[in-house]
C-alpha cells in the first residue's frame, strides 16, 4: 500500500462518511423533514389500486 493509496482511501471513505453524516444530521435536526422525504421504495404507484 503506497502513500498515494492511503491518501485515496482516506479522502474517499472520509468524504463519503462526512457527507452521509451531514445528511443524517440534517434529517434529524430539520423539523418536519421526514414528512416530505421519500425513497423510491415508499412511493406508491396508483396503478396498483386500479387492479
Amino acid at each position, binding site marked *: 500500500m503506497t502513500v498515494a*493509496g*492511503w491518501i485515496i482511501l482516506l479522502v474517499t471513505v472520509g468524504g463519503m462518511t462526512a457527507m452521509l453524516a451531514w445528511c443524517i444530521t440534517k*434529517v434529524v435536526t430539520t423539523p418536519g423533514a421526514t414528512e416530505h422525504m421519500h425513497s423510491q421504495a415508499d*412511493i406508491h404507484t396508483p*396503478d396498483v389500486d386500479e387492479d
Partner: protein
Amino acid sequence: MAKPTRSIESWGTRVGVILAVTGSAVGLGNFLRFPGQAAQNGGGSFLIPYIVAFILLGLPIAWVEWALGRYGGRKGFNSLPGIFRSVWGRDAGAYAGVLGLIIPVMIYMYYVFVEAWCLAYAFQYLTGGLRLGANPGAYEDHFNHFVGINQNGSAFGTSAIWFLIVCFVINFVLIYRGLSKGIEWFCKWAMPALVICALIVLVRVLTLGTPNPDLPDQNLVNGLGAMWNPAREGQTMLQSLARPEIWVAAAGQIFFSLSVGFGIVITYSSYLKRDDDVALSGMTAAAGNGWCEVALGGMITIPAAFVFLGQAFVDNPPGTFGMGFVALPSVFNQMPAGSFFGFLFFFLLFLAAVTSSLSMLQPAIAFLEEGIGVDRKVSVTLLSLITALGSGFIVYFSQSLLALDTIDFWVGTVCIYLLATIQVVLFAWVLGINKGLEELRRGAEMPVPGWIGPIIKYVAPVYLLLLFGWFVYDQVRQTLDPETSSYLDTIAENRTAQLSVGLVLLTAVFFTLLTVLAVRRWRENEAAQQEASS
C-alpha cells in the same frame, strides 16, 4: 408526559426515514459490481474519476431526475417517453425517452440472474453445499461451474437455472400483485441488517493478516493496496487516467449504483406530490449508497480476493459481478460461524437485489399503461415474458459471462450514460435551468446551493459529451490499430458479443415501435381534448 412520547415517536420516525432512504439505494452495484469495475479499471486510479463523477454528475443528475420526474407527473405523465415529450414539447422527446425503457428492462434480464446467484449461495450455505475447505481455488471452481463460465449452455445443467426460475417467480408475483409496497419494510430493516453484516465481514477482512505463510506477499496491507493504489505494475496513475474507458466506466458505475440514468427514479418521482422534498431525499440516498460502496464494497471484496487468490485473479476477475462470489466464501471460511454469516450476507444481498429488481419494470409498466392503454397485469405479464427470454439468452451464453458483461457494458454503462446526458440537457436547456432549479427547490428540506445551476447547465453536459467523444475516438483508434483490441473488435470477432448487441437492438426496435403507437395515441387524445375545449 405527552412531550417525551412525541419526541420518542419523532425520533423513531426519523431513524425509519433515514434507514428507508439510504437503504433503498443499496444493492448488487455496491457489493459486487463496484469491486469488479475497480479491479478492471486500475484500482485506486478508478477512484479519481469515480469521485469526480459523483460530485459533477451523480448527485446533480440524481437531483435532475427527481425534479424532472415530479414535474412530468404534474403534467400527467409517468413514463419517460411521456415525460420527455411533455418537457420538450415535441414527439422527438418520446423517442429519446425510449432509452428509459430499454435500460431497466435489459438490466433486469441479467440482474435477476445475479440475484439468483445470491439466493443460491445463501441456500448452499444453509445446506452445507459451500463447505469447500481452505483452498480458495475450490470456491473459484465452484462458481465457474455453477454459472457455466467454461462453456455456453452449461448453466442449464446446474441448479443456477432453478434458482433463476425461483427469482423470476418471486419478482413476477410481487410485481403482478402490486405488493412492491412491502419493499419499504425490506429497505427499512433488511438493508441495515445487510450493512451490519457487511461491517462484521469487514472486521474479519481487516484482521486477516497473512493467512497463508507460504505466500507472505498476499497479506492484508498489499490487499488494500490492490484496491486503493493508483499505480499498478507496468502502469502509472497518469497512464491509467489517460484511458477514456476508465472515466466512462466510473461515470457508469456512479449512475448504476445511484440508479441514475435508468429511468427508474424519474418514473417513481412522477408519483410524488407537488411539495414533496426531492433535494434532501436524493442527497441522503446518494450519500448512503456512496458510503456503502467505498467503505464496505471497496474495503472487503478486492482486498479479500488479493489475500486469498492473488494479483492475477484481481487483474482478471470472473466477470464484472463474479469477484464477490469467489473471494467472499474464502473470508467466511476463515470466520467463526462462517456458514451462518455466509448465509446471512448472501440472503440479505438477495433481498437488496429484490428491492431493486422490483422497481426495474415500473418504467416500462407505466409506459405500456399510459402509452398503449393496457392494464398493469397485462403489462407485467408481457414484460415478464420478454425478460424471461432475455435472461434465458444470458444464461445460455454463459461462457466467460460474455453475454452478461457485453449487455452490462453497452446498456449498463453506455446507454445509461446517454440517457443521463439527454436528461441533463432537457432539464437545463429545454426546461430551462431557472425553472428547473425552482422545481428542485420546491419543498426542499435543505438549501440547494446556487453553484449547482452552472454545474447542471454547463459542467455536466460538457463533461458527458467530451468524455463520450473521447471514448468513441479512442475506440475507433483502437479498432484501426491491429495491435490493440477494442469493444468494437470484440463485437466483430465474437459471435456471443454480436448476438448480445443484437438482443439490445431488438429490444430497442420493439420499444421504438411501441412508442410510435404511443405518440399516435397521445396526439389523438390531445386533439380530442382541444376539440372538447373549443
